[in-house]
């Protein structure tokens, strides 16, 4: 019981000292620090900070230039990512799906694999992995290094500084601007990036709402559907501009939901969490270009890609299995689609889309190939695709459109798919990351369920209003 004696003494002493212990202690330490520093530090220069730093800071946080510079930089980064990733993505797809895939199949054949083993391994697991790598690797390998360069230079804290006032209105932290931007690259990385937010409440807000940033895995879906269905509404000359505008609107809608949900969370569930705001604006430091690129590839890109692969492989297996295991005179996938169809149609979607989102939880990248495969399978279209359970994509946008239309897609289906692609549960990589970061089942559940409920409601209302109006 000697420990109790110590604790009792300390409680008595705390009562005697009263409040302000922490204040007095900190003051004491700082005044010691001042004495020691005075003894050994001699400042010859009068300049408090670098001239360059100050003048640059005045510009990037100025009333006139602060916001335009920010928007410009973010747009350039996103543009470089989306445009720049196209070519390497195509190359990777050609290599992994066009060359390696048939080669693997033929090896399987020569080794005498039975059809189900070869199907399970190559059509299921391998294809899912190949797709995730082809679609995910190039944009992340461009986005993360660019972002990291900005980070190392010291520009990002200034962005948080500029935007804090706006974010504060919805109960969030200025640094959430950065975790949101990071989310445009990858939500899992965005969630990890919330570590920079040192206030517990604001950090949880940033984690839960990160999914509303349209990630790299979803941009291609948005662009494809917008160009098939929305671009087609206007004369060909404007098609590109209009479909781009549609995609940007979806991204902006995501930002709108981020604000709304942040506000809702800070007023309800997160009311009692501790909150505090401070932000150091460090001096600018020139980043070391190659080193930054190297480390950001290792640190961010590969780690995220690895996690995605771990989750994508079993998903590929599941997709293949449900399309090839028969129940009655149909297979599991068909059976599920029939049962999901009613609910899907109520939401202005269909059973195929819902099933695709269920099995494609691991990665948004495989949603479109899965939808195409399932559509071809259920609508019994012949001549395209490579069989049940084998995901595919088509070179031609119009051919893809033909398949979808044959599967019963309308403009409403397209719009609601775009909305649902924004508003649904995070991919399993992100869910896992959220759990790792929060260590809380409660918040992981909230972060996973909340967006999909929102998605159901929004799609439902849009569908009903659409049907009344059209």
């Amino acid at each position: 019981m000697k420990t109790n004696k110590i604790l009792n003494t300390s409680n008595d002493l705390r009562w005697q000292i009263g409040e302000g212990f922490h204040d007095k202690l900190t003051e004491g330490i700082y005044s010691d620090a001042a004495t020691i520093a005075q003894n050994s530090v001699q400042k010859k220069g009068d300049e408090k900070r670098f001239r360059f730093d100050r003048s640059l800071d005045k510009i990037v946080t100025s009333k006139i230039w602060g916001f335009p510079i920010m928007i410009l930089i973010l747009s350039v980064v996103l543009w470089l990512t989306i445009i720049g990733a196209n070519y390497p993505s195509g190359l990777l797809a050609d290599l992994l799906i066009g060359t390696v895939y048939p080669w693997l199949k033929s090896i399987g054949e020569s080794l005498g694999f039975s059809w189900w083993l070869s199907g399970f391994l190559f059509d299921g697991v391998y294809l899912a992995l190949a797709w995730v790598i082809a679609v995910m690797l190039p944009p992340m390998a461009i986005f993360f290094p660019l972002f990291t360069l900005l980070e190392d230079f010291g520009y990002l804290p200034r962005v948080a500084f500029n935007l804090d006032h706006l974010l504060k209105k919805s109960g969030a932290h200025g640094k959430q601007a950065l975790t949101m931007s990071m989310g445009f690259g990858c939500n899992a990385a965005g969630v990890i990036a919330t570590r920079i937010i040192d206030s517990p409440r604001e950090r949880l807000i940033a984690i839960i709402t990160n999914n509303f940033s349209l990630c790299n895995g979803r941009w291609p879906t948005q662009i494809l559907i917008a160009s098939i269905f929305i671009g087609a509404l206007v004369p060909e000359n404007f098609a590109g501009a209009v479909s781009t505008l549609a995609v940007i609107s979806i991204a902006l809608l995501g930002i709108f939901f981020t604000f709304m949900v942040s506000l809702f969370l800070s007023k309800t569930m997160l009311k009692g969490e501790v909150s505090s705001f401070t932000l150091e604006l460090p001096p600018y430091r020139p980043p070391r270009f190659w080193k930054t690129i190297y480390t950001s590839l290792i640190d961010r890109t590969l780690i995220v890609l690895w996690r995605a692969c771990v989750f994508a492989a079993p998903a590929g297996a599941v997709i293949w299995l449900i399309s090839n295991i028969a129940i009655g005179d149909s297979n599991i996938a068909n059976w599920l689609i029939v049962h999901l169809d009613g609910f899907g149609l109520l939401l202005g979607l269909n059973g195929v889309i819902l099933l695709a989102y269920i099995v494609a939880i691991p990665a948004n990248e495989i949603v479109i190939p899965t939808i195409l495969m399932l559509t071809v399978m259920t609508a019994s279209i012949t001549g395209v695709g490579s069989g049940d359970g084998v995901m595919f994509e088509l070179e031609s946008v119009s051919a893809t459109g033909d398949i979808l239309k044959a599967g019963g897609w309308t403009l409403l289906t397209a719009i609601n798919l775009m909305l649902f692609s924004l508003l649904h549960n995070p991919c399993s990589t992100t869910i896992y990351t959220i759990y790792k970061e929060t260590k809380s089942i409660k918040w992981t559940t909230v972060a996973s369920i909340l967006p999909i409920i929102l998605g159901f409601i929004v799609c439902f209302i849009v569908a009903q209003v659409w049907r009344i109006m059209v």
Partner: protein
Amino acid sequence: MQKVTSSACEGCDLNKASNLKKLGINIDNNNYVVALAGNPNTGKSTVFNALTGLKQHTGNWPGKTVTRAEGGYSYNDKKYKLVDLPGTYSLLSTSQDEEVARNFILFGKPDVTIIVVDASRLERNLNLVLQILEITDKAVLCLNLMDEAKRLQIDIDDRTLARDLGIPVVPTSARSKEGIPELLQTVHQVATGEIKCKPHRIKNIPKNINNAIEKLRLEIETEYPNVPNSRWIALRLLDGDERIIEAVKTGEFITE
């Protein structure tokens, strides 16, 4: 691998190993464990990379490294395990990263703690230094970013500083690897006991508080004569630090 314990000290090493294991550090075949602490934005990760040759990402952000990074190096035939702690302004608050850093220095008992400070902003950085010196007396001050300080025309008399703080001070510019060999050597000397530190203890504390600290410290020392940082524990108890109260209840900090 297991040898028969021949002396009392072998036992204490084992005890420490198990304590470190609890904190997630496996000391394997390393002779010494070195912790790397410091404020955010002091180039701490750059020092880490310079020492270990690893390529850890060094963001220009406060609180970049929330989890601990680990690496190793050899010097003079001794193996060192280097643990990079999260950058913090202080060890007195209760935020997650401060707790990680504080717990490691207090419970992990590293053989040496390297404290990285920004030479151009020494006074502010000393806040953390003085707190760490209350916990451990085996520390080396790494006066980093000397190049930046030079550009700002700030002169630092590192001998006076070393005398005032009671620990060795090594000026470095980790980016250009300047001063890193000296740092390695100094860490080695502190680890082997060649250099004995006599760290500065916080002085400017109001009398009534100091009396309370002394009273509690004596009580802790009579109950647990071997606790090296009784004053720090007294400080934390008076501040109502729940983690330390818990540690006193379980006797966790007594691992001699």
